[in-house]
């Protein structure tokens, strides 16, 4: 695991230009406020980890980035989130297009109950990315290869995606996300349902993926955050307590709450 980051204690890491910036984001579920005035930059081609105790709002915040929160009736987001110089919550932005640029991988692997091929081909199909059948096949194979799954499934692309093992299913979901050629991939606890070996494979995969993609990952395992991320943001009770280079957060946190969390006194 290579870690290339500055040694700052301040809130923002600026190793590379931010590809996304959130400023003053509040999220409400009905009357309940789940995210309180959070601002965070997501640096390009890096892995940003969101950590914090259960219920602190990590997932909620992550889902702001591709407006997945829109699917929840009671959920209301305010504040400003910029992607490619555009407020993604502006009414001009097409959510569907946005989500094709910002992919998502979920905690529980959720392949469609279709063949492996159709799972990966679904995104390109609905977005009309492939002109010919060959082209589609190409996209599917490249995506599976990038997700490190192709060798394991090349001879059974027509079998149902659900017949794979947990780790393979999660990689299938990653391949599916990659297939629409996004710039950012959001991952919500992608390994929490996996065994240590499958976890290791996915962690390595993320490491190699950050060459091409920007990754934001939610994890409940501090160890995982330490292992894979370059930037870490610590949430508590809906607030962003602290964010910065991963190494400095874990070795020398600025806030007492962060310290308490890392040492296991809270959470």
């Amino acid at each position, binding site marked *: 695991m290579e870690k290339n980051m500055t040694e700052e204690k301040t809130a923002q890491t600026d190793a590379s230009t931010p590809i996304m910036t959130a400023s003053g984001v509040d999220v409400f579920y009905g009357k309940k406020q789940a995210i309180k005035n959070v601002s965070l930059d997501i640096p390009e081609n890096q892995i940003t980890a969101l950590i914090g105790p259960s219920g602190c709002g990590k997932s909620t915040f992550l889902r702001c980035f591709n407006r*997945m929160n829109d699917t929840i009736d009671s959920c209301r987001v305010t504040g400003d989130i910029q992607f490619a110089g555009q407020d993604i919550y502006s009414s001009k932005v097409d959510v569907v297009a946005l989500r*094709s640029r910002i992919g998502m991988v*979920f905690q529980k692997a*959720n392949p*469609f*109950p279709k063949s492996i091929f159709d799972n990966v081909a679904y995104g390109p199909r*609905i977005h009309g990315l492939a002109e010919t059948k060959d082209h589609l096949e190409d996209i599917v194979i490249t995506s599976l290869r990038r997700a490190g799954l192709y060798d394991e499934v090349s001879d059974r692309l027509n079998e149902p995606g659900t017949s794979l093992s947990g780790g393979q299913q999660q990689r299938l979901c990653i391949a*599916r*996300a990659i297939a629409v050629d996004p710039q950012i991939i959001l991952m919500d606890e992608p390994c929490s349902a996996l065994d240590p070996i499958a976890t290791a494979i996915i962690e390595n995969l993320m490491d190699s993926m950050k060459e091409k993609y920007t990754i934001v990952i939610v994890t409940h395992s501090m160890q995982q955050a330490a292992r894979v991320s370059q930037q870490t943001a610590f949430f508590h009770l809906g607030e962003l307590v602290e964010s910065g280079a991963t190494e400095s957060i874990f070795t020398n946190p600025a806030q007492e709450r962060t310290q308490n969390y890392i040492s296991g006194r809270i959470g």
Partner: protein
Amino acid sequence: MPDYLLTTSPQMAKRHARHSRFQWYGRIAIGISISFMLLMFAAIFARGTGAFQKTMIAVDVEFTESVIDPNGSRAEMDLKQGNYKPLILSGLQKVVPGVTERKDRNNLYKLVSGGAAFDLGERVAANPDMIGTNQRVWIAASSEVDLYVKGKVDVESDEAIRRLKDQDIAWINMLQDEGRVKKKFNRVFFTSGDSRAPEMAGILSAALGSFFSLLVCFLIAFPLGILTAVYLEEYAKKNRLTNLIEVNINNLAAVPSIVFGLLGLAVFLNFFNLPRSTPLVGGMVLALMTLPTIIIASRSILRSIPQSTRDAAMGLGASKTQTTFHHVVPLAMPGMLTGTILGMARALGETAPLLMIGMVAFIVDIPKGVTDVATSLPVQIFLWADSPEKGFVELTSAAIIVLLVFLILMNLFAVYLRRRLERRW
């Protein structure tokens, strides 16, 4: 080992005894319900299976041209309408000699079904070469004879109150001695419509009436039901309107079925002037009745589709409609079909609302479409159950058996679908 831990302690014994007693209450309760059902089935089977066979009498008939077709036209209608009664009668008289009195001749003729002459007419019309020949034909016995042959007439009882007199019984015995009486499969029961005579009555027109009603019911209720469910589960925001719809649906499910019949009477018949007594209206009424069932079942299926499936599609940039119709609905389809089939099974057994819209008339003809006048299986059961002729008791039970078979088949199909659904997840 302290003895209070042991099963043998007296206090424990008492508590365990109470427990096993309570368990027995449960077993007895289930036992009562199920034995009632078995008793009901047994009673119906005991009464009904006889109807699948019916008694036939062999008669040697002279197909005399001068009686059947005096003009020699050989026109189908003429052949059908020919006067076959004397032919059958003289055939019978050959076996039972000495019947000359007019009254006796009438009584003798009553041994065969009133429909026998028409039956012969149809046979001759289908095969005019029979004319001029002398053939032994098997013709249906009357219902009374049928019951006697099946042992359902108490010959010990007072002759005065018996429909079959001693003389009739003597005649039947004579016929039996000559091997001219046999029971055979009751094809008529499955191939014809209602009749005033039990031995000529069948369930085909009622079954087709049911079929057409269910068809209409399915075509209306299935799409409406699942689309409503999809709307409420996938699209609708929680607000007063959707709340109203929900409350509405839950309450509609509890509206007595007869009220739906009144709705059909007042709205479909009297207001829209749709044709009375037809499967079209019956099916519409049944559809409104099954709709809540289908919606409620479909919604619970949709709810059970994991959110992760929707998230996955949304996360890829699929629109709401794409997500719903590419992923959610196909996954829910077997379950929604199951719910629909169960709803339809209930509709198949429904009687009361159909009584209200006139599907109770005496209907012989086989309906050929949804706008032909028809009854339905349960209504036919109701009509026959109310007929005082003994022969109809057997038919009622037999029709119930047929209805139950259909219901069980539908339920099995639903169970099969449900099993397939379960395997998937």
